[in-house]
């Protein structure tokens, strides 16, 4: 029976240092709340108290915002506290995902090129949802505050492989 402790390096600390390379920086992005809302788009936004939700290549702004994941689903970031479950009046399903997704920030003039090693996304190619695949891994990618600052969320269990891929590209 195998012991693969050495083959799979232990995960990095949660307070890990930023990875800095030429024209690019990678950092872990702590978020205090993430909420998944499914239902009619307008109702989801109303419940999450957001004016709109960002897809690609929208730039989300501020500390509290919403990201479009599907036709009928948004992710509210740092939004209001909501009860999990069915919200009868709005017809919206709510689940807390604060810990379910981990996020990191990739920024700098080279950031988009780094992303384009693993996805076919283009600024000129808008998309209703921010869902993407980066080197075959399911991720949420959107811009935040600036043209060249990207926030990338992934299911927490996949953070280590996402981080490893990005870190290698950043320091290249």
């Amino acid at each position, binding site marked *: 029976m*195998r012991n693969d402790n050495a083959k799979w390096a232990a995960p990095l600390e949660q307070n890990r240092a930023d990875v800095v390379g030429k024209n690019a920086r990678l950092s872990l992005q702590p978020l205090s709340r993430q909420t998944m809302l499914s239902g009619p788009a307008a109702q989801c936004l109303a419940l999450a108290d957001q004016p709109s939700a960002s897809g690609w290549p929208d730039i989300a702004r501020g500390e509290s915002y919403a990201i479009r994941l599907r036709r009928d689903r948004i992710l509210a970031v740092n939004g209001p506290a909501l009860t999990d479950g069915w919200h009868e009046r709005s017809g919206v399903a709510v689940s807390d995902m604060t810990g379910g997704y981990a996020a990191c920030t990739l920024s700098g003039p080279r950031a988009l090129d780094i992303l384009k090693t*693993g996805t076919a996304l283009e600024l000129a190619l808008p998309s209703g949802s921010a869902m993407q695949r980066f080197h075959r891994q399911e991720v949420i990618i959107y811009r935040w505050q600036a043209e060249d600052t990207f926030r990338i969320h992934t*299911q927490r269990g996949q953070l280590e492989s996402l981080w490893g891929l990005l870190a290698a590209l950043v320091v290249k």
Partner: protein
Amino acid sequence: MKRVEGLGLIDRRTPLNFSFDGKPYQGFAGDTLASALLANGQRIMGRSFKYHRPRSVWGAWFDDPNAIFDIELNGFHEPNCPAATTYLEEGMQARAVNATPNAHSDIKGLLDKFNRFMPAGFYYKTFMWPNWHLFEGFIRNMAGLGRVENVAKSGYISEQHHATCDVLVIGGGAAGLAAARVAAESGRSVILADDHREFGGGLFRQGGLVEGQTPVDWVTEQLSAVTAAGGLVMPLTTAIGVYDHNLVGLVEAHAFGQAPSLHRIRAEQIIMATGAIDRPVTFANNDRPGIIAVDGALEFLARYGVLVGKNIAILSNNSLATPAAEILRTAGAKVRLLDASTGPFTAHGGKSLNAISQGTERIPCDTILASGGLVPLVHLWRHAGGKLSWRADIAAFVPAKGPVGMQAIGAANGTFDLDVSLSEARGENLPKSTYTLRPIQPDLTAKGRQWIDFQHDVTLKDIELAARENYTSVEHLKRYTTLGMASDQGKTSNMAGLAAMATLQGKSIPETGTTTFRPPFVPVPFEVYRGARRGQYFNPLKRLVLEPELRAAGAAMAEYGGSLRPAWFGSGPHEITREAIMARRAAAIFDASTLGKIEVIGPDAAAFLNFIYYNTMATLKPGFIRYGFMLTERGAVYDDGVVARMGENRFIISCSSSHVDGVVARLEAWRQDGNNPDRVFIHDTTPNWPTVTVTGPKAREILESLDLQIDLAPEAFKHMTWREGRFEGAVARVSRVSFSGDTSFEISVPVATATALWQAALAAGKPLGAGPAGVEALSILRAEKGYLIIGKDTDGDTMPHDLGFSIPRQKKTADFVGDRSLHTENANRADRKQLVGLMAPPGAAALPTGAHLVEVTLGKRRSIGYVTSSYHSPTLGHPIALALIEGGAARMGEDLTVWHMGKQSAAQVTSPCFYDPEGAALHA
């Protein structure tokens, strides 16, 4: 062969040392290995595949099939590098492939003497007795080109990129440059790619001025204009294939030893300006070293300053011969022009040429430059599904009906005059073409061997033989003779071969047909297709929130169903038994975070799950949990798990760890296809809720010290119910379900609280003799109880009634997934494999998992089932096993024969539940 002062794009101030077949040479920066060797007077660069004939270069770029080297530089070894496209680097050690000891004097050259015994396809007619495999090793050692070193190439990683553009221009010759400039200056985004280090394509070899400028100046101006207009210019970049929906694979070469990069370019418009190459002339001894393509010789001169001969005969059928002769004369050669359409010609000489003859006339020469006309490079056009048409005036196939968004210009389109080509590229009116050609066809009566495929040693006689034996379709010809299957993929041999077959059959070339061109355009390393998908990143594992804690507690981490989980804790696999005993005597603490937590939310949730599950879920009450099977429409068990009802409109599915993604996908498919998607939603919250499971007789005691604010008394908190509590201020969902057979609690908390919960549980368990346990111990515990693992204790045909769950099949009236398939002839078979337990006789070892149960009829053993799980039970002190056996449920108590790798043993059929069959421990 010599360098000509003042000619070429090489950097004469930077000499580079290299070796070939062990001998040292010197070239210049900008040389290819082929040009550097020619400049050193070294003509023999390789041996042919079959007869080991000495060969020199035919072409100056990718159309050379002859000079192929294994190269070593700084400890990096690469097989099968074409000498004509490998740029020279300091210290390169090159060796001709498939030559012993070297290309100049290869002992296998003797094989050529026996060529008459080895015509095309000779191996199909012999080597049948006693069998082919006996001869194969010998043949295989004779075949093959380069040698691979069996070492991993660390650091050899291909960069991968994606990009889009309005216009992708492939080929940076005159037409490509002009087209790229027009497109870029009209405001479109342009990528211009060329496989050479310098742009310019055939411009340099054509000599003279381009629109009043030297070729170098003109090219520089065009490139500056493209760049200034925002275009991207990519040298050393080959388009290897055009794939569906206008995706082009561009492979960008780097220094030797560095993996090329792959750019996947999605272009609105693809402009193919890939040029043309010379077609060889089929004549006797036309494979002799020193017989070179006209355009190849001009390339060697123009790009590398190498004049390939002193006394040159040009054997050509087209109007480009005269200007070529002028250029060569200017460079210092003596040139004689011969009309290739007159024939028959014979080359004379061995390793060096000394003459060409026509009839009785013998013309001394040291070099023959041949051209049977230009052949447009239409490979990419064919990749994209474009059609070709035959142009008799230039005796070539040219692009016809095109794929959407693709256009051919310049020589690739059969436009061989510079001015016409430029006008075509710029969309202007076309001047009249001056290129003319006299058709040629091979002379079937000529004496001596006439070579069609230089690398594969296919001669005109081989094609005659193929025709005689009725291998006349182009594909049969190719496959039977191996014509065009060499590493140049027929770039040189294709037209000559077609012409030969056409002549033999008295047909025209278009009637004879053309072969399909397949990507890649030139061979590229496998690495190009890999990129980041390697090692740990080839299917990366999911990682647990608690992994640092688990490692700190001594976990041995291993792969289970796509996640890295603790196999056991402590010093080795012997800990598994200790953990299992601990779990039965006190309690075990597991990380069960990978179990699914799929929320199904909405007013239709109950009806939806009732349809999805075999078991009736509509009647499940809030606060309660029900075990159930999810079936495929074919009735096979896909997953088992428990469903907890959180409220009127909310359920949580806890499915098997490895099935989370699959279950979510199935639910989503049924939700959108066949249900009202506004009334039920699927949220996969698995990663949001790490789970710590405490199981065993002391489990309740441990939970009590966690202060979860739940009444844990057995009558208040029963098996198969759940409660919401708090842990350190956060929500804690506690389910009383068990996979061990003992009282168990699964505690799910938010990610931020998980570490504290784990530590608190361990601290509370320690004084009670409880501690952490891994997946392996849990596997034993569940098998003792007869709990199954889908995919291990079931196969792709197992239905719920094979597992003892028959009631919904008989009683459930509402439709559910897979329902009808539970009543087919197959589902009603009496001999279906059913899950049972097995007991080995006292003192026997555990049965091997995967052993079969057999019955013997008429002396023949027949399998009636197999062992799916087997362990030594630490609780019971003897081996136990689960098995799928034909009609197993009716065989209780039966003694069966076990068969494993030829050895037999005995076992008795029992209930699959070995531990606590009454359920006292479970409900305690």
